[in-house]
């Protein structure tokens, strides 16, 4: 007997909010290296909390939205965000009870996603502003964001589906 919006709706709202915050705030922070990627951290957090299907769907949706709002061809980040969310969802069981694991997952996902993104842009004869050096910054900032985003998403997910967490 669930009341209020379902997890899918909540996730969609969270993703749109993250995209807006990303464009309005995080992308504008005058930090060295690339900007933090709140959206990717959120996707990984949804994957870790909700499983591979949730991660895949959230990643694809979020990536598609970011693609549409960016200059690069649509579909690149949709693909990589979806894969990142999916893999995070597969790692769900391993990550659950440790503090460091989400950080490692976020760091690896960010590095993999943005290196792959740069690679595809290179194949398409385009270049990104910050290049590979920027990826380092993005990874570092995403790691910093992780302790804020992942537990929050996990807590919301627990409230949405308490039965999942019980043995």
């Amino acid at each position, binding site marked *: 007997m669930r009341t209020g919006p379902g997890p899918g709706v909540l996730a969609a709202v969270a993703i749109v909010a993250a995209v*807006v915050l990303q464009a309005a*705030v995080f992308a504008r922070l005058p930090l060295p290296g690339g900007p933090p990627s709140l959206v990717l951290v959120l996707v990984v957090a949804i994957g870790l909390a909700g499983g591979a299907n949730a991660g895949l769907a959230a990643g694809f949706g979020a990536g598609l939205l970011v693609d549409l709002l960016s200059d690069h061809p649509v579909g*690149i980040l949709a*693909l990589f965000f979806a894969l990142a969310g999916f893999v995070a969802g597969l790692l769900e069981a391993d990550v659950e009870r440790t503090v460091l694991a989400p950080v490692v997952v976020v760091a690896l996902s960010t590095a993999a996603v943005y290196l792959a993104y740069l690679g595809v842009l290179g194949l398409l004869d385009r270049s990104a502003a910050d290049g590979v050096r920027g990826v380092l910054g993005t990874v570092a900032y995403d790691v910093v964001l992780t302790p804020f985003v992942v537990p929050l998403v996990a807590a919301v997910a627990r409230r949405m589906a308490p039965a999942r967490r019980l043995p």
Partner: protein
Amino acid sequence: MLRPTRGQRRAVLALVLLSVILVTLDSRGDAFSGVRSAAHSVTDPAQEGVTALTAPVGRFFGGLGDLGSSRTRIETLERENAELRRRLREGELTGARSAELEKLKLLSGRGGFTVLPATVTGLGPSIGFEWTVTIDAGRRDGVLGDATVVDGNGLVGRVKTVGESSSVIVLAVDPASAVGVRLAGGNQLGVAAGNGLGPLTFTPLDPNTRVRVGDRLVTGPYGGSTYVAGLPLGEVTAVSGDPGAPAREATVRPYVSFGSLDLVGVLLAAPRVDPRDRLLPAAQRAAS
């Protein structure tokens, strides 16, 4: 790590294919311009709202980034400012000093003195409780002990101790100092005693001397005074005591402003002839 189920694998594969198609379509032309603008029309208002809220914060952080360079810039400007201010002050001082020097030359020329110009380097009751100043001229420059010191306006004091390149001068306003004086325009003698930075006190030798407000005093020969005679000292501003009482006292405002001494002259030589009243300021002499 969980193994993906068959359905999940299919979903991933489908999404990968979909993405590749999307990328291909989009990099060939702008197939998605309509969707892009739609997406922008949804998120832009929200983005603007958030930006309006966070712009000050962003500017703050932007400022933080510039903080280092701002600080060095501020420091550079401050240094420049101090330097310019110093030059300005020097210019003003030079102007003021040249005027002072002019007056000093006038005084020494009229009195026939040989004057050694010197700058006051230390001011105030520095030695004991005497009112003294230190000047940047000493034995090397020919300064002798007890030499009279003047500035363009009149008597300053006398040399107390002579160092190699600096000297200490006891000011005429030193409370222990007594200057033998003569009322200008006559031969009535008296003593002007210092009161620190307050006005001098003039006590005539002859109790019957008539002292009036506006009378002017020059240094006189009284008591084998060590001061060169004929130097302007000050002007009577008040007379105390009853007219009939003996030894009336008068308050004398000195011509020299002892609080702001800068350029002074040490009298190295003076003619044997008393210049009498010739050194008094011209305008005031005309008025009397």
